């Protein structure tokens, strides 16, 4: 048995595949690819498939990964090639590697957020207010959570979770590059971040697009 990390893209319509659905879709893709999955032993055998960091619904990414356990005797190259023409639209396997980092080592994720506003002035206004809030460390995120069985909304100060913030304005379009806390302990969903900006600026963008651009470990090395 060997554990391999499958790297794939999730773009276009595929960004609407939720995490649970992605698990099922990828398991089936592995079966279509004819990769010899390793199964847990016991009464109800099932394959071992995990995602080090699930991607939020509606976010595109060029570098997602999942870990699977497979039988020995298949090379990484063979695994990669067997996914050819077996993937649904928007999902594409581009690399297969031996896991280097443990999923627990993930600390940061970087995102690119593209926003379009109804007017140039609104975009400018939005950016100014956002920059001020970053400076003041005043952004508050609303995160869905659970208290026992009850669903609650938790307010969390975002300042300690925002590590880089860059922006560029082009007419009514605003592009934001941001580095946020990520991983098991403190995961900040980019839509939580965006909602806090919207709330702070009291402006709703006309539309927005999210891309995940990278995953990093504690010493800001690329997760691989």
């Amino acid at each position, binding site marked *: 048995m060997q554990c391999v990390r499958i790297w794939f893209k999730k773009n276009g319509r595929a960004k609407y595949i939720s995490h649970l659905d992605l698990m099922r879709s990828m398991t089936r893709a592995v*079966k279509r690819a004819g990769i010899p999955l390793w199964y847990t032993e016991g009464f109800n055998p099932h394959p071992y498939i995990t995602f080090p960091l699930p991607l939020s619904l509606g976010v595109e990414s060029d570098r997602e990964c999942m870990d699977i356990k497979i039988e020995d005797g298949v090379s990484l190259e063979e695994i990669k090639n067997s996914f050819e023409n077996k*993937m649904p639209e928007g999902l594409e396997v581009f690399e297969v590697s031996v896991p280097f980092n443990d999923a627990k080592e993930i600390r940061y994720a970087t995102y690119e957020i593209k926003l379009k506003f109804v007017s140039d002035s609104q975009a400018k206004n939005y950016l100014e207010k956002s920059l001020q809030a970053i400076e003041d460390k005043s952004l508050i995120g609303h995160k869905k959570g659970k208290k026992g069985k009850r669903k609650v909304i938790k307010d969390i100060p975002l300042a300690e979770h925002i590590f880089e913030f860059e922006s560029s304005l082009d007419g009514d379009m605003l592009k934001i590059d941001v580095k946020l806390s990520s991983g098991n302990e403190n995961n900040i969903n980019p839509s939580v971040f965006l909602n806090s900006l919207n709330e702070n600026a009291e402006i709703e963008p006309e539309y927005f697009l999210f891309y995940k651009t990278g995953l990093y470990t504690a010493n800001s090395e690329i997760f691989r």
Partner: protein
Amino acid sequence: MISPKVENLILSVQKPGRYTGGELNSVIKNKDEVDIRYAFCFPDTYEIGMSHIGMKILYSLVNERKDAWCERVFAPWVDMEEKMIENDIPLYALESGDPIKDFDIIGFTLQYELSYTNVLNMLSLAGVELKSKDRTSLTPIVIAGGPCVCNGEPMADFIDVMLPGEGEEITNTFLDLFKEYKLKGKTKQEFLEACSKIDGLYVPSMYDVDYNDDGTVKEIKAKGDAPQTVKKAVVKDIDSMFYPEKFVVPFIDVVHDRTVAEIFRGCIRGCRFCQAGFLYRPIREKSADTINEQCRKIYESSGYEEISLCSLSTSDYTQLNDLLEKLLDWTIDEKVNISLPSLRADNFSKELVEKLKKVRKSGLTFAAEAGTQRLRDVINKNVTEEEVLESSRKAFQNGWTGVKLYYMIGLPTETDEDIEGIAKLSQNVVNEYYKNEDRPKGRGVNVNISVASFVPKPFTPFQWEAQDTMEELKRKQEYLENCVTTKKINIGWNDSRISFMEGVLARGDRRLGKVIETAWKKGCKFDSWDDRFEFEKWLEAFEECGLKPEFYANRKRSFDEVLPWDHMDYGIPKKYFIKENEKAHRNETTQNCREKCNGCMANKLCGGECDAMR
């Protein structure tokens, strides 16, 4: 591709995956390179429609053609519908994202009566006129198939052409004819007249219906050259019949998301309540090799973890052991489960149990249908109490700790004794569990009984019978609840109001068109969903249209009454149904078709062949 307008609102509705398309094996073509654009509409949610095998077959069949592109359309759930209307987004097809009003053909599958309002709702969301007579140009032509078109009269105002029977061959005949008429620039009327002359196509507007003063049908008259009776389409050889090699694999969790193999068509049993058992005659089996090969191909192109062998009565398939042998040969290694729905309690063999145990254990369901032998004889469900108990015993001995039992209430000639029988038989199944010495220690048994309300359907021996009133069904439900004294038996019910409305529409005539339209205008849709069904609005719609629903549901018809579907020919003559009805009232059973041919005449549809007699 979905439009940016749709993208903007899609994250604000439940399950965006219903509306995006882009699934594996969905077919994308260049719209400029096809002559026919076909919107295949399932009038219910994505999750239900994507579970339907008929849609998969016809989708692939049409897309095999170079000149046609078939796309899928489902009823948007109410949250999405609201957003679509708000943002001016017409109903679109999932593959191209194009509005279906610009398609050549809009086809619906009518699988259950309570989806009729959804058909109207989808046409309206598409921006297409509801009524056939108000759509004057050839395109889009609105067609419908599925079991409900055996009596499609309630939908006659809305559908241009219906396709009674099996679609695998007639669809191509229809498309060829359509293409010819479209390219020649012919009118819709010319096309409809041409359709009406072809077996397997029914054009409702080519028939006039007259009524007697008492509301019954007086006469159904064919117009022009249309035939007096319309024959259903039949595929003679199902072994060589088209079957898809690929299924569209949904991203989101749908009801049935698995490889499906149809193992045979028709049913040898002749249960008198069962419409499917008569509509799909004669019996035609696929060979074990064909099925095995088809399953393998679909598995390889989908990665599905389960295969379901589908038919009306799986254990009646003559090559079942052979087929399971062939399937298990590769499915065990691939960790693929096999599920066998529709097992019969009377031939649930030891070998079968052992084969089933090799794959992951699924639930077992036995259809007893009625509580006493007398009533089971009336409905010709030739299963004895001992057989149900024997099957349960085998299941318990093999490690199952629960079974599911199907029953119906409201059957013709039913008395309270028969209702009590349901409780008794179920209790005896519970007792079987405790008789088993090897049962798991400290574990109780679960017997789930599902009790449906009987709805008389066209093309069955009970098509003349009165359906029990809602009050009577409610009383019987309460009575049964009082008869069940153990917590080991869980009872599941149908809403008797929904069964009532199903019964009304099933045996309805053309006059119900305006009732359906009125109910829809009042907001009725997703009527088969318990939480969306609005009975009061239906009653108001009947009131406003001056019709009584009880006339359709609760009235016993005489054998000489003209039935609204008398001009439809499904291969079994009325006199056969009359004979069966009379036997039912004498508590007499009819042997299954394999023991003895009972002369239903359906074999004539296939040139005299019927696999029950092989």
